């Protein structure tokens, strides 16, 4: 019996120690769909300059969104940060965000990169162009995303799974440009051209292209940037075989709409208890300092025009962006997943 008593004493003690919650005079509570490594350093810098303590939970965006919904008016969260405009739109639709007109941010962030009603603001830009094997692909072969459905690419394409929200948003943008029927045909053609069934992440697709499994893929540029800047010779060797192609640049009309891009962003929560501090944090994330940090550390493009970017990003070249209003990605997301299901894109 004494053993059992000891166990319960330890248990109770542990519960007390582990259960302590941090309280500070000025705080802001953040739910983040971005990984800790890609947000915490900025939050720490913010705390240092302002003295406002930041409490953080990271997790899968949709799960955090569900938590926000269930917690309702009692939710402690002040700011919801996530990647992908589709998710931000979903949060807006779910009624967990609060519209805020923030003149400072509106001035810095272009209108296409934030919600029209001020529910969320884009904080970094992420481009998703075509990436190809320099040795086996003649640049003249490449033109648009849509051309990847052609017979010339039979067995030469690697794609990440359609579970990836980046692919869902790419398809959502295409639906907006071409309509559902043409998008469906494009998806079917591209799935037909796959060299292997979709598996793994963006980096895995890049590795597959370098290893000769396939010749092209569609991937976010920061993954390539990470390989380029890696300290490991093996990863640098992979990156050296790859190059970025910016699709849909020529002409006007839907096929000349520009390359697909997306944002990471944030919005104030409806029931946040520290709106003032949350606004300060949001403004900080759009500051030159924070914008440059994302460019340097994770090779993401700044949303604020005129902020210097890293040599890696300059090396990818400049490109025309699809001017689509990003909330459309969210509106079309469900249909996009349905089309991908039908096309057999796993």
């Amino acid at each position, binding site marked *: 019996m004494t053993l059992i008593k000891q166990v319960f004493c330890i248990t109770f003690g542990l519960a007390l120690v582990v*259960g302590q919650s941090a309280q500070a005079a000025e705080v802001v509570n953040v739910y983040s769909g971005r*990984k800790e490594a890609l947000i915490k350093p900025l939050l720490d810098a913010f705390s240092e300059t302002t003295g406002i303590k930041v409490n953080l*939970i*990271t997790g899968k965006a949709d799960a955090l969104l569900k938590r926000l919904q*269930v917690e309702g008016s009692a939710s402690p969260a002040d700011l919801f940060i996530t990647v992908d405009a589709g998710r931000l739109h979903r949060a807006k639709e779910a009624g967990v965000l609060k519209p805020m007109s923030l003149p400072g941010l509106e001035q810095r962030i272009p209108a296409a990169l934030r919600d029209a009603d001020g529910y969320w603001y884009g904080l970094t830009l992420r481009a998703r162009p075509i990436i190809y094997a320099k040795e086996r692909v003649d640049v003249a072969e490449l033109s648009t995303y849509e051309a990847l459905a052609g017979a010339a690419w039979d067995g030469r394409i690697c794609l990440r799974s359609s579970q990836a929200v980046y692919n869902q948003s790419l398809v959502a943008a295409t639906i907006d440009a071409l309509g559902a029927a043409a998008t469906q045909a494009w998806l079917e053609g591209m799935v037909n051209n796959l060299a292997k069934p979709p598996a*793994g992440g963006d980096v895995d697709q890049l590795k597959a292209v370098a290893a000769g499994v396939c010749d092209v893929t569609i991937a976010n540029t920061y993954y390539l940037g990470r390989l380029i800047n890696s300290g490991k010779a093996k990863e640098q060797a992979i990156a050296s075989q790859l190059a970025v192609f910016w699709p849909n640049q020529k002409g006007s009309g839907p096929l000349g709409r520009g390359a697909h891009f997306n944002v990471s962003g944030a919005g104030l929560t409806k029931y946040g208890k520290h709106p003032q501090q949350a606004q300060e944090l949001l403004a900080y994330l759009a500051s030159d300092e924070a914008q440059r940090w994302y460019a340097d550390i994770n090779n993401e493009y700044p949303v604020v025009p005129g902020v210097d970017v890293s040599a890696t990003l300059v090396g990818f070249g400049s490109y025309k962006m699809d001017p689509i209003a990003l909330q459309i990605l969210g509106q079309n997301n469900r249909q996009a997943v349905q089309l991908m*299901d039908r096309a057999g894109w796993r």
Partner: protein
Amino acid sequence: MLKRYGLSGFAVLVAALLSLPVLVILSYLVQADSALWQHLLDTVLADYLINSLLLLLGVGSGVLLLGVPTAWLTSMCSFPGRRWLSWALLLPLAVPAYIIAYTYTGLLDFAGPVQTWIRDITGLGYGDYWFFEIRSLGGAIIMMSLVLYPYVYLMARAAFLEQSVSSIEVGCSLGYSRWRAMWSLALPMARPAIVAGLSLALMETLADYGTVQYFGVSTFTTGIFRTFYGYGDTVAAAQLAASLLAFVILLVLLERYSRRRARYHSAAESRARADLIPLAGSKALLALAICLLPLLGGFVIPAAQLLLWAVFEAEPLGWDFVRLAWNSFSLAFLAAVVAVTLAVIIAYAQRARPSKPVRAVLAMPAFGYALPGTIIAIGVLIPLAWMDHRLIAFAQNLGWESPGLLLSGSLIALLFAYTVRFLAVALGSVQAGLDSIKPSLDQAGRSMGHSPLAILRKIHVPLLRSSVLTAALIVFVDVLKELPATLILRPFNFNTMAVRAYELASDERLVDAAPASIMIVLVGLIPVLLLHSSIARRRPH
């Protein structure tokens, strides 16, 4: 009255509370959303079902093939290495399935060292030679079998060790050979234990998301998350999860029905140790090989690869790993104590031969094991947040300050989720222990005027000690590895090793995830080794 029904009543209350998340998910079945279902039926649902069934079939065969022979060999035969193998075979339990998947992919995919080496020495290019595609259904089956077989091994070995020697000796005296006795007596007698281990492995398989998602295998579980994350449709996702649950309940009922009348405890008193069957020469080598295979595949190779990554390639973990390890450890400890305490209460109430409705209530919470952690987390959040809102309203009515989210925003939610998720594991072990205690002992205690509580304390606790310890240790390791529920339900600024490993791995930095992964494995080793010594003590050597 209270003495007679006190414990059972309390058990029913506990079980009902623990069933809440499962019931919340099941309740979604009532809500209709036919449009999305029609689309799923037309396109992907058949694929999900077929892949899930194949996965179950494959992992089921895999864990039996790896778990039962090794359990038999290490408990009944003597061959060189038997002693250390009998605990080493538990080591894969400390390796999370998604981590072994990442590790083998790093080793075996086209860009990994093995295939690169093949290309370098042969001069062939990709596609010119055949190589096993690790990211496939077959790969997923192998990965999960390698880390889940210890459930079967553990339960089967305990059963073999606890079998009354006399029944086997009677078999032998009736002319059975040792091997014949195994097939005709020992195996059938161990069936409840083997099935318990198997169902744990299969439920874990159904709940897995990380491995199949990474391998691009569309199973029912990836389907749940596709509807959740892709369609943003919690209702349809919960409905899919509820169908999964219904399927599992059906399977469990079928198994129970198939052995409805059998009794598995021995009437004999003898617990004497049978002589081990000595193996020599090629037979001993074969036995050694059979036992080494799962150990190498499930632990040595992945752990070595992780260690190489962690030491030579990854960014060092930094001092906050102490905090991560402490968080993981204390959380796992708390969850193990809570889950096992509740499991003992429920298992004991089940033993008291309750009425059918009571039995159903008691059986309910164990099904949480078949649900993916994220779904459990939602099932936990909804009722706890509801209670929180009532509490807040209550406080405001009294003019007090709002207490905030006392339940859903604290570790209580996390511990609740772990208990629901892993109660089945604890129950399995405790029930197996209780099953081997003869009812006549209870009856004797009862006839001497002891209350059920006194019988529990004076007769069962001493006899159950090792089963309870086993249960606690398995829950400990499982919580250590658990990811999805931890991710959603954790309080602010609360990180664990599994969360750290996942964040790096899902950011496609597999190598940098290695130090945290190896830490999970190392901390997981402690209870696994304790587990061994607890089993070893069951039978005198």
